């Protein structure tokens, strides 16, 4: 039987998106060692795939890339990509662990009986030796197989072996085994002999004193919505696909209709296309759809000045700092806001999309044609702790927080915290704020844990916070 390797850190952060990275950076700068475990081949999460952020319209990549680089170059942070967490258990252990923080006990080599969190992590095979790959992309250029590129909303292609995207971290190629025909071209061209067709997935253990769940969100699928064509109507796309069309390094480097490459003259947004909708199993508001739809509409109005842009909405929820002004600016720019819930979407003539809605100003049922329709889908939890650890979920399937008003990052499993959209739909501003909060809670917890070992009175304890809750 193979022995499973164990690596020890002060903290393990699950998820390498903006929440996970900010949490990891804030913890690492307090001199704790952090492991960031990411399921994808690159860190950066959803944010690195966005075009710009609201309400400042700053470039999303310009904010995320420095944080990704900072995490990659931080001596206290270790990145694990292409990894899945199989289980997390709280175990009593006899440890001689060396505690890295300055408040740790002087006599830190003595054996202690304490609880630690042990996570079994599966490292999926990349079929590329991560230590040898230099990210030259020669394998990618040489590979003859084109595969639909999910990173570009499926609008373009990548190769069966590729670097996930241009500013991915780490810059290590990944071979898509399902679409590889083992032609050997990548292996022949690789200057560092990094290709390994025989690489296998393996499990290892990360032992940490605290874990932060920063697992983010996913969008509901258009295919779940029969009224909107179940994703089969050409030129009906979701908001994340529109982000790629708007991004400067997007699939077409401009906004074009995916069905035929025409520059759209009329673009519509359908708000609450997958949220506030019991038929989709998402009765709650996804919080940031209104703002990203307004942001995208403003960006579209900049790149396609002659296009007619319309947002069909139930309510505009512009709740954050500067958000209402952003909404008013959009209206002043000529973006049309129509208070209506779109009832039906059908394929129109010549690639157009026909919407049917009931006008709230008394015009009854109205039919309208658009060249391109963007559905603001619902936000759902990206990760379930079921079968992995004993953290509870709320009714909405996001991670349940035990003290959402005072300490929104506390979960009901001691030593496990949550940050960002893993606990519920959240915009980037709130996510970064909450990531900082999670880092401080972790720091407090570690001080309590390490202080207790030295016989010190804790600053605050989880049980006291639970009592408040």
């Amino acid at each position: 039987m193979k022995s499973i390797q164990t690596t020890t850190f002060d903290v393990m952060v699950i998820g390498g998106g903006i929440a996970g990275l900010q949490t990891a950076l804030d913890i690492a700068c307090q001199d704790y060692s952090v492991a960031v475990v990411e399921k994808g081949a690159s860190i950066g999460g959803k944010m690195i795939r966005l075009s710009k952020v609201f309400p400042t319209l700053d470039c999303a990549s310009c904010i995320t890339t420095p944080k990704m680089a900072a995490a990659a170059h931080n001596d206290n942070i270790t990145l694990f990509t292409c990894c899945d967490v199989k289980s997390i258990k709280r175990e009593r252990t006899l440890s001689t662990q060396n505690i890295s923080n300055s408040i740790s006990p002087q006599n830190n080599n003595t054996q202690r009986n304490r609880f630690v969190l042990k996570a079994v992590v599966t490292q999926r095979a990349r079929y590329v030796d991560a230590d040898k790959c230099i990210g030259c992309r020669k394998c990618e250029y040489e590979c003859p197989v084109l595969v639909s590129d999910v990173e570009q909303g499926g609008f373009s292609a990548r190769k069966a072996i590729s670097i996930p995207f241009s500013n991915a971290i780490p810059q290590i190629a990944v071979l898509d085994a399902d679409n590889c025909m083992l032609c050997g071209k990548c292996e022949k061209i690789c200057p560092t002999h990094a290709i390994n067709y025989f690489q296998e997935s393996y499990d290892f253990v990360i032992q940490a004193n605290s874990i932060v769940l920063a697992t983010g969100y996913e969008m509901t699928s258009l295919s779940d919505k029969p009224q909107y064509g179940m994703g089969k109507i050409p030129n009906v796309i979701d908001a994340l696909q529109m982000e790629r069309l708007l991004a400067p390094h997007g699939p077409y480097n401009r906004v074009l209709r995916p069905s035929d490459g025409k520059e759209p003259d009329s673009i519509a947004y359908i708000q609450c296309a997958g949220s506030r909708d019991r038929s989709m199993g998402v009765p709650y508001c996804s919080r940031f759809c209104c703002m990203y739809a307004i942001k995208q509409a403003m960006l579209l109005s900049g790149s396609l000045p002659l296009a007619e842009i319309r947002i069909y909405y139930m309510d505009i929820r512009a709740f954050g700092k500067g958000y209402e002004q952003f909404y008013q600016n959009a209206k002043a720019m000529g973006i049309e806001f129509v208070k209506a819930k779109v009832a039906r979407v059908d394929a129109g003539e010549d690639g157009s999309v026909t919407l049917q809605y009931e006008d709230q100003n008394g015009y009854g049922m109205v039919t309208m044609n658009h060249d391109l329709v963007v559905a603001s889908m619902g936000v759902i939890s990206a990760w379930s702790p079921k079968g992995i650890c004993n953290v509870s979920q709320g009714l909405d399937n996001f991670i349940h927080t035990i003290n959402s008003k005072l300490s929104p990052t506390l979960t009901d499993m001691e030593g496990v915290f949550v940050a960002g959209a893993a606990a519920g739909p959240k915009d980037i501003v709130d996510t970064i704020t909450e990531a900082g909060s999670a880092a401080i809670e972790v720091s407090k917890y570690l001080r309590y844990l390490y202080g207790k070992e030295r016989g010190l009175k804790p600053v605050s304890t989880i049980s006291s916070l639970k009592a408040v809750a």
Partner: protein
Amino acid sequence: MVEENIQQHKKTDELSKNLDKKADAMKALRKSCKNRIDRVAEIVREQKRALKAIRAQLANSPSTIPEIAASTDMPTDIVLWYVAAMKKYGQIAEKEKDDGYYRYSLQGESHVID
């Protein structure tokens, strides 16, 4: 000197043995993945046909997506997908706009997709 030669021969022998072992292992791997390899190979053949047809049209004159689709008898969305990929790997360049559609033309030797 003789000692050095012996060592060199030993190393070469070991290397060729390893290469033989690897070739055998690759053969076994290809055999075990035959169904997948056949499926992907068929996709690649189809992709090569499509790319060749698109290149042939663009060699005649810069064309829009509907023009390429008409000449290659392929759906416009599929043509756009290939064109986006060819543009990404530097094979084609975007030209002027013509009645709502951009024209694309072949670009010099670059990262090949065929």
